[in-house]
């Protein structure tokens, strides 16, 4: 077979492979969908990834669902990567030989390196879900009135406010200005991510060079993918540890907090006017509650230190366990208590040893199985500690 025929066959193989792969995925998805009792008629060529999402996402326990969601998102991104690479190989007319060609192919499959088309950002945006949300996602539901104030309209923010609604207008202007600053901070952050993306191709080129040595060639898509991940992680780590990234990250977080705080203040203002309890009021209550908890414990500590040790009584009881009682071998509480009373430690006890008494001790009385009141529980615990004093 001539070299030309081989190349033509190779191109043909890749083009057909590209088509076969998605057809095979589609078939598998259809079969799984049918077995799950789901209407597979809406599957269309090119929808295979969506199809998998639907199939996997149904009939699962609630806790597993979040994992499945993340699994699908990760797999989908991998498949998109494969699709992009495969399409580029097919379009190019064969498998590249040189490193530069491979790097160019990876770049082309990733698309133009713009802030709006950045693999790093795609990764971050595509994978938030239950259990993990970045600040950007946390802000997704909040109104962004700054969208309307770009370009020349920005100048309106400096217009002096006057009249009956003056203060309200000033607050609105400040909020919009803060949102614009937040967007600028986001752009600066995205620019750092773009740096990471670009650097990842440089890293990849170096890694590919290492793989030119005989015996180290990559012969599977997964191996190529793993190498790409290594390059991406290395590049990201380098950028993420840079002073520029640190500044951009901090600025973004701080600007987002400012916007959020202003929105919260505005919401409080509105809800407060109609008699709704506000976040600030709750904070005040919670703060006082915590101060009271501390005060009570401090007083209990002092009480402990001032109270003479009573005669030995039953040791504190224990709460029900997390496993069947048959498996548990609780300590003989009464024996321990007696032993404790007899064999006091040789060392003098620090005050701390006499003051661990405040909590809800046990919920069940040892030996009797009777429930104690909260007061007697605490007292029992206190007595037990006092014996050591």
């Amino acid at each position, binding site marked *: 077979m001539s070299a030309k025929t081989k190349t033509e066959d190779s191109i043909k193989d890749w083009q057909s492979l590209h088509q076969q792969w998605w057809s095979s995925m589609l078939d598998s998805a259809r079969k799984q969908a049918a077995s799950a009792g789901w209407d597979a008629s809406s599957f269309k060529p090119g929808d295979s990834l969506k199809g998998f999402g639907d199939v996997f996402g149904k009939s699962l326990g609630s806790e597993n669902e979040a*994992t499945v969601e993340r699994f699908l998102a*990760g797999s989908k991104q991998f498949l998109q990567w494969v699709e992009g690479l495969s399409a580029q190989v097919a379009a190019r007319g064969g498998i590249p030989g040189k490193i530069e060609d491979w790097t160019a192919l990876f770049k082309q499959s990733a698309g133009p390196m713009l802030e709006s088309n950045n693999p790093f950002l795609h990764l971050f945006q595509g994978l938030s879900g239950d259990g993990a949300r970045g600040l950007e996602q946390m802000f997704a539901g909040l109104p962004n009135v700054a969208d309307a104030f770009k370009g020349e309209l920005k100048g309106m923010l400096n217009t002096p406010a006057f009249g009956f609604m003056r203060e309200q207008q000033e607050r609105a202007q400040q909020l919009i200005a803060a949102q614009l600053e937040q967007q600028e901070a986001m752009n600066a952050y995205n620019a750092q991510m773009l740096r990471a993306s670009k650097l990842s191709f440089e890293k990849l080129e170096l890694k590919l060079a290492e793989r030119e040595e005989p015996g180290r060639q990559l012969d599977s898509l997964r191996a190529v993918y793993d190498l790409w991940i290594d390059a991406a992680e290395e590049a990201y780590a380098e950028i993420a540890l840079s002073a520029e990234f640190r500044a951009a990250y901090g600025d973004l977080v701080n600007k987002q907090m400012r916007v959020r705080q202003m929105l919260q203040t505005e919401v409080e203002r509105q809800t407060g006017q109609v008699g709704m309890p506000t976040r600030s009021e709750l904070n005040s209550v*919670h703060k006082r509650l915590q101060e009271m908890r501390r005060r009570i414990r401090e007083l209990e500590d002092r009480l402990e230190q001032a109270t003479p040790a009573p005669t030995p009584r039953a040791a504190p009881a224990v709460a029900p366990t997390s*496993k069947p009682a048959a498996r548990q071998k609780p300590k003989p509480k009464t024996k321990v208590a007696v032993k404790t009373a007899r064999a006091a*430690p*040789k060392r003098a006890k620090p005050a*701390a040893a006499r003051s*661990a008494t405040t909590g809800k001790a046990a919920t069940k009385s040892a030996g009797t199985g009777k429930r104690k009141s909260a007061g007697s529980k605490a007292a029992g615990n206190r007595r037990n500690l006092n014996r*050591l004093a």
Partner: protein
Amino acid sequence: MMGPIRLQPAAVAQELAKFGEKLARGAGSLRGLPEVHYGASAKEAIYSEDKMVLYRFVSEHRVTEKVPLLIAYALVNRPYMVDLQEDRSIVKSLLAAGHDVYLIDWGYPDASDRYLGLDDYINGYIRRSVNVLRARCNVPAINLLGICQGGAFSICYASLYPETVKNLITMVTPVDFQTPDNMLSHWTQGMDVDAFVDTLGNVPADLMNWCYLTLKPFRLLQQKYVGLTDILDSPGELENFLRMEKWIFDSPDQAGEAFRQFIKDFYQGNKLLKGGLEIGGKPIDPKRIRMPVLNIYAEQDHLVPPDASRALKGIIGSRDYTELSFKGGHIGIYVSGRAQREVPPAISAWMKQRR
């Protein structure tokens, strides 16, 4: 010179077809799996306060060690990682070695806990838990095992109340919070933590998780799940994977004030290393730690780099200091097969030598 990539169309077609098959079969595996559970050892609650619960693990073996071991875990993530499942449990191994093991479970703070500070955690919960154990076990001092952030708390506690700690064990514990490879610390340096906490109150768990995942985004958000296809048809491995996922994303919100103090004093101020740290108005002087210390760190730890942990040696007053280096990462040190073989036996032997 040969090219770096030698993909053959037929081989790639086969590889992709297999991947598709695995995905398809995996649908059945995932659908058939029940929700995963955790916890290998029975435990009983012996003390509680607010949302904190002090547990005692119930041993099926004879307890031969008089001095109890208290485990203080981090506030981020849940402490059941130390007793995840039958074949992945530090606790189980320690129980089998005759130790009496206790664990502080901090619970899930809610809005009413926003003003819980480090003083409440260290001078409050830990101190009272230790005292409960001292009373219960009739010993003047206990063994304290602090893990990750819980290790930093344990160092503070042992500095404040050294007479109540017989032996101190720290595991993947940061001491120098500003080593050059500490990405998490790097990111916090430009943050206005006051504005952050004043705005958010408690720090949402989802945000914390996101932050951890973005330390290694491609591995943790994508590659890990692509790798999942390799075990989709293995129910046992899949169950282990799901259990780990459950743990990773089962995170409590962080009490706002404690978070503020931890970021300011530990990450931004690096005061545990440099000095000047105060908890509840009490100065922390690690030189007061003169009891034996075992410091365990993981060589591939991306959250707490080895140098961040090894710094402990230079700040304490103990002459009996031991380091244990583990070949693995921050999570592997609890659950990997190697960890099960190496870590609990080392902890147990070290404690038994210092009864």
